[in-house]
């Protein structure tokens, strides 16, 4: 007997200890389509999110394509396509780029043809080069369908797919699913019995936390199981794919760089006025203090948006659904932040050189800048991931990052003073060593702990 595409065995889902749906048992064979019908709050979305590995179940067992959604989360993700209430697409990428990005994350072969085919199936081939943020709600829903079915998952989970589709598209939905991922089992939730009748072979009614209508096996002839197109992608390739995406989004959105540069200019001039003109401090001391405390502020400010923008656009869900090592997401974000901090640091050295009449572009200073960048970015990126789900992350972020980064600032100031005051060669070495240790410790901890922070 061939294995089922989706098996739920007395699955209980909910929040804390509060059950939303209890003891659900259900089996879907390859090619079978089942509609979950039920009123608002019946637990349909929670069930689908649990099966999509986005939320751990409270009890029972569920397997997708033979992989347990708790024990083998990454394996299960290869076999699942999920369309949620809100689209998890990247607004600054075009429809085609969105799909190509996902194809790289899932390690699909023959990407170009696969993406074009998916776009034509959902009827978006003519606007494939339009950015996702310019698409209508219905077009986004079609693109979400294409994204979910791109890797030919064993199971497609659709949360109210009819919610924002026009009447024609709802009518075309079964044909779209046939063409997009033939043979995939489909579990879709809807309020509308007509949609259920049209798009699914059988329906299961859920209400008051239970499956009201017991599961009866479908009568359709079994289809051969689907082989998912998702393959293993190396950590480095995944991180590179994510970094390229982040850099492209930043380039198009210009969300961080201009504001950060303006902020740096302002703070540097302000500190210069306060310490040199008003307090008459000596130039090397001002340069050492101002350079690294400004960079610390910039890194913690920049960190607020680092994961925050993904969280607000709901795109972290798309990364959590992908069968990738989640630490790669952190590494890509870290590299992006480090690039920002480095650019800001270089601009600041130029500014301070001019304002204080110092020669700051020298070996010792550049080495310090490099190491401070690596260490500060590690601290700030990690705190950004931790503050992600908090209510007041803009306020909280500096509160978390600044105390942890104090050794970085001290070491930066120490190394700078040694360099600028013409200490004997190697005077700055202990400070640079300390910076290297901080960077290594925080990077290792972050890569190790990041999956716990975002992915349960």
């Amino acid at each position, binding site marked *: 007997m061939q294995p089922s595409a989706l098996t739920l065995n007395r699955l209980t889902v909910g929040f804390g*200890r509060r*059950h939303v749906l*209890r003891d659900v048992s259900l089996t879907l064979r390859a090619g079978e389509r089942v509609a979950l019908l039920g009123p608002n709050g019946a637990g349909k979305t929670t069930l689908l999110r649990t099966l999509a590995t986005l939320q751990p179940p409270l009890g029972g067992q569920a397997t997708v394509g033979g992989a347990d959604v708790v024990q083998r989360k990454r394996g299960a993700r290869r076999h699942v396509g999920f369309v949620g209430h809100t689209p998890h697409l990247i607004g600054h990428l075009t429809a085609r780029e969105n799909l190509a990005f996902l194809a790289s994350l899932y390690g699909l072969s023959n990407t170009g043809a696969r993406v074009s085919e998916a776009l034509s199936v959902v009827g978006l081939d003519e606007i494939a080069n339009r950015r996702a943020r310019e698409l209508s709600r219905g077009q986004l829903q079609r693109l979400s369908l294409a994204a979910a079915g791109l890797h030919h998952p064993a199971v497609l989970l659709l949360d109210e797919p009819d919610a924002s589709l026009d009447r024609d598209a709802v009518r075309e939905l079964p044909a779209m699913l046939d063409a997009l991922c033939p043979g995939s089992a489909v579990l879709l939730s809807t309020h509308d019995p007509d949609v259920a009748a049209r798009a699914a072979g059988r329906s299961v009614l859920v209400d*008051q936390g239970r499956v009201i209508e017991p599961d009866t096996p479908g009568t359709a002839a079994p289809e051969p199981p689907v082989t998912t197109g998702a393959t293993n992608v190396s950590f480095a390739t995944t991180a590179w794919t994510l970094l390229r995406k982040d850099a492209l989004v930043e380039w198009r959105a210009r969300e961080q760089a201009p504001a950060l540069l303006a902020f740096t200019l302002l703070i540097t001039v302000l500190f210069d006025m306060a310490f040199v003109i008003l307090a008459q401090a000596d130039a090397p001391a001002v340069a050492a203090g101002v350079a690294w405390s400004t960079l610390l502020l910039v890194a913690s400010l920049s960190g607020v948006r680092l994961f925050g923008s993904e969280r607000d656009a709901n795109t972290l869900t798309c990364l959590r659904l992908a069968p990738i090592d989640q630490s790669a997401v952190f590494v890509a974000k870290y590299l992006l932040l480090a690039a920002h901090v480095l650019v800001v640091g270089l601009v600041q050295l130029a500014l301070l050189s001019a304002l204080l009449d110092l020669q700051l572009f020298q070996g010792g200073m550049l080495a310090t800048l490099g190491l401070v960048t690596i260490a500060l970015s590690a601290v700030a990126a990690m705190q950004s991931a931790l503050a992600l789900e*908090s*209510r007041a992350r803009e306020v*909280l972020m500096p509160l978390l990052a600044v105390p*942890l980064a104090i050794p970085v600032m001290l070491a930066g100031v120490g190394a700078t003073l040694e360099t600028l005051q013409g200490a004997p060669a190697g005077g700055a070495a202990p400070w640079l060593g300390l910076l290297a240790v901080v960077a290594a410790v925080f990077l290792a*901890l972050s890569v190790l702990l990041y999956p716990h*922070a975002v992915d349960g």
Partner: protein
Amino acid sequence: MSLASSVLRRRASRQPPLFGWRGLVVYASLLVLMAAALYMIFIYAPAERVQGDAHRLLYGHVAVAWLAFLAFGIVAFASVMYLWRRTARWDSLAVASAEVGVLFTTLTLASGSIWGRHVWGVWWTWDPRLTTTLVLWFIYVAYLALRMYIDNVDTRRRVAAIFGIVGVVDVPIVWYSVEWWRSLHPVQSVTRAGLTPEMVLTLVVTVVAFTVFCFVLIRQRYLLECASDEGEDLRDSVRNWHDELRLTGARSTPEART
């Protein structure tokens, strides 16, 4: 029905935290130890030759400082255990220790500052010990703030555990960075006056008394946190049970009619 009643039975069978005869023993010994410590600090121990009576502040100061570090060590240990085991109790222990740790760090900084004003003539100096303690205070205030701002209980526990671990890892780094800094820019440090046997005995008794006090506080706060978690669980269980009952009623009604 059985679920709710079993939960209620479980609650009723448990003794209220630190009451009953065990609690009496603990509180009585704490009272005796504290009274002894206070007596020894203010009457038994001789005044120090150079510092005079300001010296008496240091007994409590040393005790709370060491206990603050210990409490943060417990936070880190409980955080690691939580990430490994995912049992709510480890998280409860972490938050209990963090709160007590912040309280004791505040006491350390305040007592140290008052002592410093009398002996060094300044409220504050950038001594490695002082600086590290201050940074530690900031880190764990941030830890408590982080917990306060995350609504989802599972996320809160996970994220706080990570921050709890990172915070402790940062402590030796802060210590060394300030230590090196001091070697470049020497500042005033504690005069190492010789301690008389009476002073040593007073210090030992004070440390023991404060250690018991610290553990009682952590335990009480831990039990309070557990009770609050259990309250939430109980509420959820009762609601589940209520749903169950309503569903059974809804199901049986049509059958009864037919």
